[in-house]
């Protein structure tokens, strides 16, 4: 049984399912029970499960992270949500010093901190320097943390349920521009394994490794090139940033010999850089051309839509890069037309303000 739903409804469905199957799951965050329910993701949960298990919280990101840790050490499975990843930066002490270290620093003798932290990342509509930072590479750098970043509604549900029932701390990243993605989502306690990438398109010419919203732009570019120029790419959606599904990546790169990595964060010391480094080590003899990464320029995010025009990478940029790597010239004008000129929003459904 499945139902057509948006990404945000799928998140809501996952939370509701988790709370139904396990009384120890609790859910809190600023705005969780408010009338907007964090972009719809938490609407109705407090009515269903009561204010002991679903609650708003003080503006105390650091303590509330430590409180999740403490509760988890006595069998509770807290899910904490922040409407922007940037707000959670106040909690790095508890996340890094405690959550990620806990299992190790007590030699496994004091539990393993089963907490899930949902962080929403913005883009466009002037989200600017403090509402749109994509810091998955920070989190993924720290041993002891899992970092999950789904692209599709179905993956959002399956991976959120697995995150909540994982034994350790999980950072669950939701891109704001994906909240309206709609597809068939299985009903009930549907879980997908953490640490497995998803092969969304298959082809022998080039491997595109992507994550989160960048995968949407990649699909447009890859489908266009397939239709118009018979260029066929593997498109691997990482879904999990830590652990990374290296086997799937190496298999693809060894097959195609051409590697393009798309990263929704800054370029230097990015996850894309790590993927290229590992592929250089493991697939060195397969490379037919230098690998390429496309990420954000190394500067804080500007606000004005005039300034973000060339800041974010889009389908046409990806198309250009792929054709250049293959040494092929293709007319990309139709792709530009198809994608529209409004780089600032994900679609008509997005009316701002955040």
């Amino acid at each position, binding site marked *: 049984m499945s139902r057509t739903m948006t990404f945000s409804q799928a998140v809501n469905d996952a939370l509701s399912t988790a709370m139904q199957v396990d009384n120890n799951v609790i859910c809190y965050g600023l705005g969780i029970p408010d009338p907007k329910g964090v972009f719809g993701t938490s609407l109705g949960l407090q009515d269903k499960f009561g204010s002991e298990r679903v609650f708003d919280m003080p503006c105390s990101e650091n303590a509330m992270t430590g409180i999740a840790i403490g*509760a988890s050490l006595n069998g509770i499975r807290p899910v904490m949500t922040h409407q922007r990843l940037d707000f959670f930066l106040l909690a790095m002490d508890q996340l890094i010093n405690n959550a990620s270290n806990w299992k190790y620093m007590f030699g496994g003798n004091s539990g393993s901190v089963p907490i899930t932290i949902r962080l929403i990342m913005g883009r466009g509509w002037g989200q600017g320097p403090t509402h749109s930072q994509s810091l998955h590479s920070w989190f993924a750098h720290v041993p002891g943390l899992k970092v999950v970043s789904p692209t599709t509604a179905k993956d959002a549900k399956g991976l959120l349920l697995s995150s909540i029932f994982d034994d350790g701390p999980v950072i669950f990243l939701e891109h704001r521009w994906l909240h309206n993605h709609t597809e068939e989502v299985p009903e009930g306690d549907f879980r997908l394994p953490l640490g497995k990438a998803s092969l969304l398109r298959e082809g022998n010419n080039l491997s595109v490794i992507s994550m989160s919203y960048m995968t949407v732009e990649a699909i447009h570019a890859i489908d266009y090139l397939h239709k118009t120029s018979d260029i066929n790419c593997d498109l691997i959606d990482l879904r999990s940033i830590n652990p990374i599904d290296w086997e799937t990546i190496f298999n693809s790169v060894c097959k195609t010999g051409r590697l393009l990595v798309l990263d929704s964060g800054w370029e230097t010391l990015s996850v894309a850089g790590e993927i290229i480094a590992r592929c250089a080590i493991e697939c060195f003899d397969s490379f037919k051309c230098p690998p390429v990464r496309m990420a954000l320029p190394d500067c804080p995010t500007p606000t004005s839509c005039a300034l973000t025009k060339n800041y974010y990478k889009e389908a046409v940029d990806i198309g250009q890069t792929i054709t250049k790597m293959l040494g092929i010239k293709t007319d990309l004008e139709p792709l530009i037309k198809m994608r529209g000129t409004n780089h600032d929003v994900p679609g008509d459904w997005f009316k701002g303000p955040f």
Partner: protein
Amino acid sequence: MTIDKTTAIQLYSKMLLIRYCEETIAVRYHLEKKMRCPTHLCTGQEAVAAAAGQALRQDDFAVSTHRAHGHYLGKGGDLNRMIAEIYGKKSGCSGGWGGSMHLVDRSVGFIGSTAIVAGTIPVGVGLGLSIKLKKTDQISCVFLGDAATEEGVFYESVNFAVLKKLPVLFICENNLYSVYSPLKVRQPEGRSIASMVQGIGCPAVNGNGNDVIESYEKISKAIDSIRNGNGPVFLEFSTYRWREHCGPDFDNHIGYRSGKEFEEWKTKDPIEAFEQKILSDEIADKNMINELKTETQSRVDNAFNLAELAEFPEFSSNPGFEEIAR
């Protein structure tokens, strides 16, 4: 004396154990160079640790700080496993991954100590939240120092504990120094920590942390109130660490505090004072005291010998931690 004989002897024994443990570390630390980790001794501060451990139930939770030996032992934590941990051995309470600053003994509710100032305060409050959700009558005890009340997370945590009326006991040992920085350069003179905490809406009391009976009574009273569902209580106890901030030596000569101040506090030795008290109240005689001392020192020496003989752990980046050798 308002406490019974058994309790008095247990308090005394706990203090002795903590003192002998700390002083044996102090003697052997430089001599052997086998305790290769930062070690924060609590000599002089034994009373609050013993009193809290005595007043709490075994199934109550406790979390602590970098200076945790006393809290761990007071709560009933395994002595042998603590010393083995300081030696970095496989049989240590944290399997050699934690050292002196990361102690745990879940079997007595000691959930963990960490070395970031105020780092375990919200963890203790979270344990309090879990107790409330699970509707048991346990309480969660958070040990902290005076400097922890300068951290933002302290206010965030107390606020939440008050907001949700959580079963949390905050025990602040004010020993006047954060490393070498005296309280007066960190907090306005004349403002008491307890009264500030009261302003957040948390009942707060101060007391003499070198008086084990007073500490025990105030902690017991707080525990009763918390167990009755009245929400968190904050206790501030004045006390003094005898040795340097970190390490086995004395540091009164380096200039951040005076030898005179140290000598004054030494005259308020919590163990010496309580020993006189139990002798004069005829709770124990000289013989019994001496026997207790000999027996305690021999337990401590045995723990060190076991630690010396124990195996070192082997490194793996994916240790699993399924089976930890005891």
